[in-house]
Each structure stands twice: as C-alpha cells, then as structure tokens.
C-alpha cells in the first residue's frame, strides 16, 4: 500500500493548500471578506474626505430644528414650526396609512377579480381578463398620475361639489366627509365590540373542542358575527347613538368642518390598490385552479355540502398556495407607496427624503433614515407573514 501512496506526484505546499477542501474554502472566504471590507473602507474614506472638503459632518441634530414647510395631510399635530423629526413621523404615518388602506382595498378587489376570472360567464370573465392585462402591463406610476389627473381635472371645484345626500361632498380639493364626534357613552359600545372579538376567539377553539369530542357542530361564524357586530350595534342604538356627525359646510371657497380626504391620498390609494389587485387577482385565480377539482369532487362524494367544501377543502389549500405571493404583493404596495412623491402626497420619501433633505442638505443622514425605515417595514411584514404561514401549515396537518 505504501508505495502506491508514494507514487502520487509530490506537489508543492501552495498547491496542497489550495487543493485541500477546507483550506480552499477558508482562503476564498478570506479573500472575499477582504475585498468587501476593502471596498467598504475605500468608500468610507472617500466619504470622509469629500465631506471634509465641503466642510460637512455627519450629525442628526437637524432633526430637532424647525422643518418650516407645510404638510397637507397629517394625523398628528404638525405646523411648519414643528421639527424635521415630527415631519418624519408624519411621513411614516402617511406611508403606513396608505399601505394599510392599500392592502385592504387591493385584497378585496384582488379576490373579486380572481373569482371573476374563474367565472363561467364569458363576458365577465373577459372583462376581468382585459382589466388585469391592461393594469399589469402599464407602470404603476402612470396609473397614479392618470388617476390623480382625472380627480383633479374631472371633479368640480368646491362651489359646485358633487353632493352625496347632503353629508359628503366630492371636489377636486378632496372628498369632504362628516367626521364623528365621539361621546363618552360610545366607549361602552367599543368595549362591547372588543369583548365580542375576545369572545369569538375563545368560542372558536371551544366549538372545535366540542366538535372533536362530541361531534356536535355550532354555527361558529354566525355566533361570532353577532357577538362582534350584533350586540355592539344594539347597544349603540339603545344608548341613543352616542356619536355626533359633524357635517362639512361650504365657507368661502372651500369646505370647513368634517373630515377631508386629500385628492393625492385618494389617487394614490385607488391607483396602488387597482394595480396590485390585478396581480392579486392572478394569484388567487391560479391558487384556486391549482387545488385540483378532484379534491372538490372527493369532498362532495363524501356528502360534504358545497359551502363546507369551499371552506374546509378548497380555501385552506388554495390559501396555502396564495399566501406567499400575496405577501410579496403586500410588500410591493408598501414600497410602491413611495411613488407618492410624484403627486405630492407627503410620505416618508417626500418628507424626510425629499423636502427635509433639500432644505438641510443632509443627504447621508436623510437617506440612511429612509432606507432603514423601509427595511424595517419589509422585515416586519415578512416576519408576520412567515409566522402566519407556519400557523396555516400547522393547522393544515
């Protein structure tokens, strides 16, 4: 044996090290690390030199200085004397607002489109198809600009607003809606509502346990619905409707009082939702088609009713296919909301990454904040979706 091992050509140490699996992997990684680090170091060095040359430093103090610009839509107190930090908070809230509303509307529209695409009705089906193809193949920025243009140009001035039963007024300055003034008694209704939610969560697991043990089946959906919606509604009327609605009124050139939804918000909301809905529609359609029809047949052969078949067999399986791509659509809507800047909706990019950046000249700091904020949102959404995914998978088994 020994002479055969000896007969191998003697190789030098470099070749021996390079050809050893472990050392080679270490060498490659050291080189990669060194290269990345060197690049990083080089860029930081450049930045330091460049900043010094124009006499700038890196500091986040500007956040506490007055922003001195106006923001048309703000859920928290904001004036032009507020700080850049407050402006950023307003931007964050506005981004979240558009993301949450966009996700809700696009999900509803998307599932509707998906179902329409599966409809046996030829006209409806083709209508949904044309809508989806048109929407998907045109950039979202164009949709936003187009819808914004339509709202601003096609809707009337406040003085001849479209009047919806004397309560809401649609104008090109925004939609003016009655705003609720909550009276103390309303908190009872709200408490009942929260209790209803807690009750139905408990009741769902209780009903499942009862069904597992005795086979008895409660109409969980209806009972939960009446707990969450029914009792609070009854309470609301029993207490004599403890909400006052403040109706907007035309004062001078514009409406005062009530609640206003800005045209930018509406345009962005509708455009983002319609755009994303087209993608969700396709996701839903392919998810449901992928759940083989054999499964449905098997279930109806077992004597399970049609509604039960949908809720017990088709939807859980389809959801498993639908949810991962749905998540990335939700992420997309959040990221696409940054296009707000094109029509002047004041979100993160427009506030801290736009006007604040231009006013203070603090490019590095502002862009870092913006990037970190978006990264946080994305990580949060995907963490939540991963958790939900796991849960669905577990209950599936």
């Amino acid at each position: 044996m020994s002479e055969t091992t000896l007969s191998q050509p003697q190789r030098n140490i470099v070749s021996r090290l390079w050809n050893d699996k472990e050392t080679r992997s270490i060498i490659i990684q050291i080189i990669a690390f060194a290269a990345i680090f060197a690049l990083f170091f080089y860029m930081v060095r450049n930045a330091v030199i460049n900043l010094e040359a124009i006499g700038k430093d890196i500091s986040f103090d500007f956040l506490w200085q007055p922003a001195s610009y106006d923001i048309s839509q703000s859920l928290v107190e904001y004036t032009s004397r507020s700080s850049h930090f407050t402006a950023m908070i307003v931007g964050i809230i506005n981004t979240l607002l558009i993301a949450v509303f966009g996700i809700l509307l696009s999900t509803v529209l998307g599932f509707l489109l998906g179902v329409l695409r599966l409809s046996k009705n030829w006209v409806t089906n083709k209508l949904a198809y044309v809508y989806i193809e048109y929407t998907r193949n045109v950039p979202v920025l164009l949709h936003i600009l187009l819808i914004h243009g339509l709202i601003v140009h096609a809707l009337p001035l406040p003085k001849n607003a479209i009047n919806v039963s004397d309560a809401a007024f649609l104008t090109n300055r925004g939609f003016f809606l009655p705003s609720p003034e909550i009276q103390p008694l309303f908190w009872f209704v709200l408490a009942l509502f929260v209790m209803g939610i807690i009750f139905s969560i408990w009741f769902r697991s209780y009903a499942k346990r009862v069904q597992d043990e005795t086979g008895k089946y409660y109409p969980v959906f209806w009972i939960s619905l009446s707990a969450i919606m029914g009792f609070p509604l009854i309470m609301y009327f029993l207490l004599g409707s403890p909400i006052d609605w403040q109706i907007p009124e035309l004062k001078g050139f514009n409406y005062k009082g009530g609640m206003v939804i800005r045209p930018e918000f509406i345009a962005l909301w509708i455009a983002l939702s319609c755009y994303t809905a087209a993608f969700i529609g396709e996701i839903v359609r392919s998810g449901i088609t992928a759940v083989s029809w054999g499964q449905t047949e098997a279930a109806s052969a077992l004597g399970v009713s049609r509604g039960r078949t949908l809720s017990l067999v088709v939807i859980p399986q389809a959801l498993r296919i639908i949810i991962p791509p749905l998540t990335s659509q939700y992420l997309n809507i959040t990221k696409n909301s940054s296009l707000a800047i094109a029509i002047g909706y004041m979100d993160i990019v427009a506030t801290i990454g736009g006007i604040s950046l231009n006013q203070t000249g603090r490019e590095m700091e502002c862009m870092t904040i913006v990037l970190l904020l978006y990264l946080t949102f994305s990580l949060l959404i995907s963490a939540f979706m991963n958790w939900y995914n796991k849960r669905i998978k577990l209950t599936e088994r």
Partner: protein
Amino acid sequence: MEKNNLSATGSTMKPDYVIGEHPDLPPPSNTIGPIAWIRDNLLSSPANIVMTILSIFFLYKILPPSLDWMFFDAAFVGEDRNACRAVADGACWAFISERFKLFTYGFYPIENRWRVDLSFVLLVIAVIPILFDKTPFRKYGLWFAMVFPFIAGWLLVGGFGLDPVPTEKFGGFMLTLVVGITGIAFSLPLGILLALGRQSNLPIIKVFCVSFIEFIRGVPLITLLFVASTMLSYFLPPGTNFDLLLRVLIMVTLFSAGYMAEVIRGGLQAIPKGQFEASDAMGLKYWPSMRLIVLPQALKISIPGIVNTFIGLYKDTTLVIIIGLLDPLGIGRASLSDTKWTGLSNEVYLFVALFFFVSCFAMSRYSLYLENKLQTEHRR
C-alpha cells in the same frame, strides 16, 4: 332517437362503414351553435344572467364614451390645443404627433439621430436569435447579442471617432430602452452569481449575498435612485464626476439583480439532488458542473419568473423622471407646461401607457409561449 336511427339504417341498407368502426355521431344539435354557446356561457343560471346583464351594462356605460373620446370625437391634426377644441371635444392627438420626435429621441442632437436608429436596428438583430431558436446562424447571433450592449453604448454615447453626445440629451423612448436593456442585460448574470452565492456553502459569501439581496428587496427603487442622485458621489474618489445616467443604470441593474437572484434561486432549488450527485460522481468541478448541468436546467425552470422580472424592471424605468431624467413620461410632463398644449395630460399618459402596454404585453405573451414550448418539447 338513437335507437330509431340504428334500426332504420340496419333494416334498409348495408352500413357504409366497416363494422366496428362506426364514425363518430355528430354531436346532439342542441350543444353546438351560437345559441347553445350563449346559453351555456351567459345564461346558464339566474346568477349568471345577472352577471351578464351587469357586465353588458358596464360595457355600455364605459365603452361608447371612451371610444368617442379616443377616436370618433378626437382631433388628430391641429396647431395647438385650441385648434383641437375647435374641431372636436375628445382627445387632442395632434399634440402627440407634433411632439412625436421628442417622445422618441428626447433631446438627442438631430444630426446624430441616425445613431439611435442604427442602435435600434441592431437591437432587433440581436434580439431575434435570443427569442427564436430556429433562427439561422443562431450561434453567431447569440455572440452578437452579447456584445450588442457595448456596441450600442458606443454608438449612443460616442467617442472613439463619433461625436460625443452628453447623456443629459438622452430622453424619450430611447432612454426607456437604454435603461431597460442595460438593466436586463446586466442583471441576469449578476442575479445568477448572487443566487449561486446564496446557495453556496461558504458562510461569508452566503451571508454577504443574503444581506445584499434582502436589502435590495426591502427598499423601494425610488430610494435607491435618490441614493444614486444625492449621496453616491460622496463615496467616489474626490474629484470624480460620475455621469448621472450611469449611476442610475448601476442602481437599476443592482435592483433587478436582487429580484432576479431570488427567481433563479427558486430554479436552483427545484433541481433534484441526483443531478448534483451525478455531476459530482463524474468528476466535474464546481463551475463546469454549474455551467453545463445545473444552470441550464435552473434557468429554464425560472424563465417565467425571469421574464416577469424583466417586465417589472422595464416598467420601473418610468421612475427615473423623479430624479429628473426625461423618459417619455418626463418629456410629456415637460411638454404640458407649454402654453400651446396645457391640460392635455390624459393624452400624454394614455400614449405612454399604450407604449408600455404593447411592449410588456408582448413580453408576457412570449413568456407564455416559451413556457408551453418547454413543457411539450421534452417531457422530464
């Protein structure tokens, strides 16, 4: 009915077909024909009837006014907006036709526009062999496609014997194509490398690729473009002035490479372990094994995803207007400020939308065609 038929033929004449090979009977008359089709597809149940009525009502409300505005009541020629309004109430397409050159070339110097045209012709020549595998001399065509981005870059930017054209003059559809094609051409190889890195068993490389991909996918493109336009120059050696378009191209490429990497990773994961084992057992090293065995299969599986990423990238080129480049949308919005043509934003948006719709729809159809072809070509 059928029984009658049989006995009738049987008793009166010899069947005119070989026994046992009865030709298919025609389908029962009430399952074919337009009336049956309408009944099955539009009126099969009360709900279906309601849907049909609603849909037709919707069409009736939407279609005639839109068509009127776009065609029947539109002005196709005219000096300015008022001239349009004088002849028709609908769209004023005269605006688009007057600015058509601007929409196509941006501010590219007129005497050099042949270079843009030539690049476009070369683009078509480069793309055909990629799209259709029956192209004659396909191999040379593919080689040409690989060098095309560089040739086109030289033609458009100039230098080396051609008049240099500053990239600020780029605009219109030409700019869209420049950004889109560059992104497509360079994001695919970069995406492949990132995907391989993410699948690699070298921890440092893996961590680097994962963080890069997740970072890119976690932030909107617009913020990266802002980074390119505002702070990237700080990180470059002092005194260097980096072309804005080039910075944008780099960012767009990196951005779609992140998405591309995830698509390709999906393809890599779909490849059975046996393929890796067989190529290992043959003694193939890492790169040959990837190039010859793994990537061809992985890329083939990921074609739909890759094309979707391309479409996304192509649509995203519109975002460059936000940092001041003049793509068709930018040109359109700039032209709107011309007093001759104010208030024609709908025309501009629809025209640009049409351009994007045609190109993106074509791409997605092509991807469907490829998918079907690959499925039937050789079953796995």
